[in-house]
């Protein structure tokens, strides 16, 4: 029995490494409270190790811990995204004045970051509803605390409270849905549920209610409208690093979990070999329309409200809501095609969104403000930074030759392939709308002059620039050479137990 456990453990080496790292960080923190350097190094070392192990394990496709956890290409893909995002955020945190001001609790900060990461890594592999709930809560609990990390700032505290209440409520609703599913199928295992559902069930109302209850939990995690309400407030209030992390990693984990849940639970696995890797839903769970409405609402509302924001972080919060909407489009397709598009989008999104938040953070370090008016004239004072931000924003808009275009392009490709033209039109129109607010930032940076007539250049240390470049270059590179990206995503669409 112990042997089985050890065997299983070898399958979750990355998670184990992260767990060990977080323990080590905690211990080191207890020993030396103020040494940030070592904690950063430790975290990065652990994460890199995990990253390495992950890349080594690409291609693994099995299930461990009595089917609780899948270690399949799909999960590994998202784990890579999450770990990479964590690495970037750890580095970002090193440069963040906001975080560095809290040096006394910096150990806890890294601990929380790592535990979020850990929770998310488990999330993407969970193939059991109980596991999903547990891991979702795990990452959420750390997130609540992390968003309230800068305890001196009122905003941060408020963000953490709102996040907590909203999160607790949503996960409670989700749990209730899980319990109903359990009642309907007698199991919490996704594959098991699928088997039972395939035999047909007359309890449509219960099934629908339960799936939507569960959708509330997912929707909250990926901030899909109308479950997004916490997002702007929390994103604005939380430290920028955490916001960046939430907007990328947390969303990725949520998406991964949602995709897995819907795909494994609700897809009729007896219908095979449809063109373009399309799937058929089990009758009674025609979730496609709901997802479609969700995605249209999400991107439209996100974009429209973002038009009105003056706080860049808040604007990016709405933008990330809108981005979630585009990604949901990929889900709506319900095909390998769409899923791989979402996955590509995430890689792209990782670079561009983290990049945008990173620049926002760096500028906030210098100017102490995230208000859009404070971006005036930045183009002259910090050209590299501004150009980088411009590229990230253009990428978020989805214009070539940036990676963002490839992300959107793949989404629309899959939609058109599935002949969902109408919704694709909505999608592209939305991206036109989104240009308007992204360009506001660019406009302020380059087209307008600082009213205070400050012109002295803002300088940034080399290390910060290197991190910037390491986000900027992929954003441009993947815009032109996305071969491997697509191949990787397509290979990674496989889930355990699915064809």
């Amino acid at each position, binding site marked *: 029995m112990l042997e089985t456990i050890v065997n299983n453990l070898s399958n979750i080496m990355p998670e184990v490494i992260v767990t060990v790292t977080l323990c080590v960080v905690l211990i080191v923190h207890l020993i030396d409270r103020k040494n940030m350097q070592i904690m950063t190094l430790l975290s990065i070392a652990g994460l890199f190790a995990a990253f390495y192990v992950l890349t080594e394990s690409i291609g693994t496709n099995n299930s461990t811990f009595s089917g609780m956890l899948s270690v399949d290409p799909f999960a590994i893909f998202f784990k890579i995204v999450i770990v990479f995002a964590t690495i970037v955020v750890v580095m970002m945190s090193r440069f963040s004045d906001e975080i560095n001001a809290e040096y006394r609790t910096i150990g806890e900060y890294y601990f929380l970051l790592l535990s979020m990461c850990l929770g998310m890594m488990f999330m993407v592999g969970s193939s059991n509803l109980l*596991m999903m709930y547990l891991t979702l809560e795990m990452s959420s609990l750390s997130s609540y605390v992390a968003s309230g990390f800068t*305890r001196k700032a009122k905003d941060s505290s408020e963000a953490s409270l709102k996040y907590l209440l909203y999160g607790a409520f949503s996960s409670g609703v989700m749990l209730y849905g899980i319990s109903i599913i359990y009642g309907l199928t007698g199991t919490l295992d996704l594959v098991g549920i699928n088997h039972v559902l395939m035999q047909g069930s007359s*309890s449509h109302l219960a099934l629908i209610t339960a799936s939507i209850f569960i959708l509330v939990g997912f929707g909250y995690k990926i901030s899909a409208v109308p479950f997004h309400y916490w997002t702007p407030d929390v994103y604005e209030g939380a430290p920028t690093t955490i916001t960046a992390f939430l907007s990328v990693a947390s969303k990725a984990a949520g998406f991964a979990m949602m995709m897995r849940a819907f795909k494994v639970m609700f897809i009729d696995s007896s219908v095979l070999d449809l063109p373009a890797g399309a799937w058929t839903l089990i009758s009674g769970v025609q979730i496609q329309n709901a997802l479609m409405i969700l995605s249209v609402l999400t991107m439209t509302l996100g974009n429209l409200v973002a038009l009105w924001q003056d706080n860049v972080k808040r604007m990016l919060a709405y933008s990330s809501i809108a981005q979630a909407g585009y990604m949901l489009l990929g889900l709506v397709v319900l095909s390998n095609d769409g899923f791989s598009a979402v996955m590509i989008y995430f890689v792209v999104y990782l670079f561009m969104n983290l990049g945008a938040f990173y620049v926002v953070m760096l500028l906030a370090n210098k100017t102490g403000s995230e208000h859009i008016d404070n971006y005036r004239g930045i183009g002259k004072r910090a050209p590299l930074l501004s150009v980088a931000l411009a590229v990230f924003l253009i990428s978020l808009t989805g214009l070539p030759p940036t990676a963002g275009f490839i992300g959107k392009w793949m989404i629309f490709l899959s939609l058109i392939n599935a002949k969902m033209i109408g919704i694709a039109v909505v999608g592209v129109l939305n991206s036109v709308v989104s240009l308007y607010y992204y360009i506001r930032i660019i406009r302020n940076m380059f087209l307008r002059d600082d009213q205070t007539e400050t012109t002295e250049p803002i300088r940034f240390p080399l290390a910060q620039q290197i991190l910037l470049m390491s986000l900027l270059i992929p954003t441009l590179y993947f815009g032109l050479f996305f071969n491997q990206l697509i191949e990787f995503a397509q290979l990674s669409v496989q889930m355990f137990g699915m064809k």
Partner: protein
Amino acid sequence: MYEIIFYFFAFVTVASAAVVVFSRNIIYSAFALLFTFFGVAGLYVLLNADFLAITQLMVYVGGILVLLLFGVMLTTNTVSVDIKSGSLNVFPAVTVVAAIVGLLTGVFWTSEWFMSSTMGELTSQTTSKEIGNALITTHVLPFEIASVILLVAIVGAAMMARRERVK
């Protein structure tokens, strides 16, 4: 007999929960919650989940409720009127909740649950052994994760609640 016990516990649970929800005094609510937890524990017993019932009592009553009470004490001045906690959004909430009740009632009445809906034979066998087994076999991963969660909770709560040093 079973029915009587059931209705008793059911009544305790529902009534005290109602007090929790509707009482304007937060202290009353907190204490009413104690009875709710008891009631639920009773129902657990009726559901042949003895281990769960004990856990419920220990964790909820011994842990969570105490925490909540701490919270109440630390955040409210017991002698002031502040202790009365108002409500808001009553009307929409009532509407929404009524809808939910309706929905759930519908769901529970119409659904065809897995296996039978008649009551199976009560066995006197306790579940502790099975649970214990599961915890180190099939559910070992959730178990471990739960431990990490608790660690996170401890560290997080400690960090969050620690008083700021006066500058």
